[in-house]
């Protein structure tokens, strides 16, 4: 096989920008050729001449001609990406790493716990599970955000609620008069759910502090370390297991993760930072 240049991004045209919340937007891209990824894998998104950052697609892995990336405005590159208008040509490298373990989820009661922009990778997983509805027992999705305005994918949530085998629980830290659901941190929702823990696998994605307390809560509920999967957010720069920026102990998060089973990483230093 001829060596390909691992640093060269595929071009992708920005078709649409969807405002999900005051700080979060989704970017619908049309890659110059078909682009496949497994749910939970990530890509490196290049803003020409400005920078590159890792994101896990929020769209369905079954769709090959479009890819949707949901991005929170957080740093230098994301700030510039938020200012983009449709028509812009961006770059995509990947997909990289190990995604969600679908085989481990089939036949189970799947507890999905998300916080803030951590919903993005989880939506891709939920799309996948929806397509594989016959292979799973049920999906319980718990989602927390800061306030009702920061609650993303509102139309999608409404669709999800209507799907057989899917249950949705939502909470906000601070409510307003429009909010009719729970109030409190995301982990609190776990007190409300009914799952047969023995038959269950949990998937958690969100800000580090939410993941930390989420895992603690799951273990308290009786989940074993091996039943909990996490999507780790580190500074994945090359995506190739080379540049070193995402090292978490012996693991290169970009290559060995970003999805890890809790028991694989619990003894590594600083996993919640």
């Amino acid at each position, binding site marked *: 096989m001829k060596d390909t240049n691992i*640093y060269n991004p595929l071009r992708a045209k920005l078709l649409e920008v969807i405002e999900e919340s005051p700080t979060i937007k989704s970017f619908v891209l049309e890659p110059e050729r078909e682009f496949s990824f497994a749910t939970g894998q990530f890509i490196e998104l290049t803003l*020409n*001449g400005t920078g590159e950052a890792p994101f896990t697609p929020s769209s369905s892995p079954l769709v090959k001609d479009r890819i949707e990336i949901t991005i929170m405005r957080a*740093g230098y590159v994301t700030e510039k990406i938020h200012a983009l208008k449709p028509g812009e040509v961006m770059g995509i490298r990947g997909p990289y790493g190990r995604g969600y373990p679908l085989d481990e989820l089939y036949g189970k009661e799947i507890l999905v716990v998300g916080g803030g922009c951590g919903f993005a990778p989880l939506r891709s997983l939920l799309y996948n599970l929806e397509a594989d509805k016959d292979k799973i027992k049920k999906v319980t999705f718990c989602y927390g955000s800061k306030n009702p305005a920061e609650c993303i994918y509102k139309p999608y949530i409404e669709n999800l609620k209507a799907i057989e085998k899917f249950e949705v629980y939502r909470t906000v830290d601070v409510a307003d008069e429009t909010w009719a659901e729970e109030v409190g941190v995301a982990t609190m929702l776990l007190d409300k759910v009914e799952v047969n823990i023995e038959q269950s696998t949990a998937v958690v994605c969100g800000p580090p502090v939410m993941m930390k307390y989420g895992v603690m809560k799951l273990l308290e509920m009786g989940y074993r370390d091996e039943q909990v999967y996490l999507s780790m*957010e580190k500074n994945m720069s090359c995506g*190739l297991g080379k*540049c070193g*920026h995402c090292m978490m102990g012996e693991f290169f998060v970009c*290559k060995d993760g970003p999805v890890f089973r809790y028991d694989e990483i619990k003894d590594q230093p600083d996993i919640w*930072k």
Partner: protein
Amino acid sequence: MQGCNNFNNLFVNSFILIMVDKMVVISMTDWQAVLLQFARSYSFFAPVQFNGSMDYELIDEENTGDIIYNHPKPSTSVKTFFLPVKENVTADIRYQKPTLIMGVPSCDLAALGILDEMYLNRDYTDIYYKNRRKNSILIGYDCNSTVENCHCTSYGINPFPENNFDILLVRLDENVFLQPGSEKGIAMVKELENHVKVVEASENEIQHISEKRKKIADSLTQKNKKLPGYELSGRLINESGSEIWKSYASTCVSCGACATICPTCTCFLLIDRPGFEKVRQLDACQYPGFERVAAGEDPLEELPVRFMNRYQCKYVWKPVKFKSIACTGCGRCIDTCIGKISKNELLEELASEEKA
């Protein structure tokens, strides 16, 4: 695949009789003619003394006489030839004159093991690294002396090249001894026969080289007898408390020199340029913000943690993922540290604490 078996050498006892394979001899006068030919045919680099330090210099027809033989070690490691500080990794790879690098010490050749694993394997090949490796000829040197912080033997590496060279070179008085170590090297030595007088080294001469090797290896082992070995160092680091790291990091200024100069440190940053160009620039975990994410979390924010990270990476984590050794005992990180931090003193202190 060359270069992945250094780790196996960890248990080589440097006290055993050091055998030398078949070598050929060329007189220094003839060798000068060979060097001129090298200077014409290749981008030719060799160690030259300059302002009290020695480093690789471009050799042309004027300065072949300045080349230093068999003295450790060039200020920069051979890594810089394969991973330049900055390289555009989206540019076309155009034809380059082959590079001949002479005078590479054993520690730096051993370090190519982990570089090759990182850049040629691990599912993704870096074609820029691969191209530079393929397009280079390496002439290794025996070390016929030692300098202050050399400690290769502590990590199972001998002070004479055993891997990753095309030709090995030892100069004794007015003769140059060559030993090919690859097909490329065999072809080159064979080609020399067409131009200069090449004879097989005598048993006496080989005996002399073997004795020299043993003497240098023994002196290094003796000098570093308090230094814990590679695996033990990993265990000691893993079991250490935070105090020692705070104490040694107190004079660290996060300049990153230790990582920059290290023959096995390979971390980099990708920089974007207009036109979807990307530049791979060497980076160091010792720089603040190395692991910081956009939302602000930074596992290496605190200096002692960041300082310790480099030791953990080399002695604890890399051995889990790589076959090749991640510290080859060149000692440059100690030579270069402006905070006067000695890695070896730290490791010796950990070892003595354990005994106490």
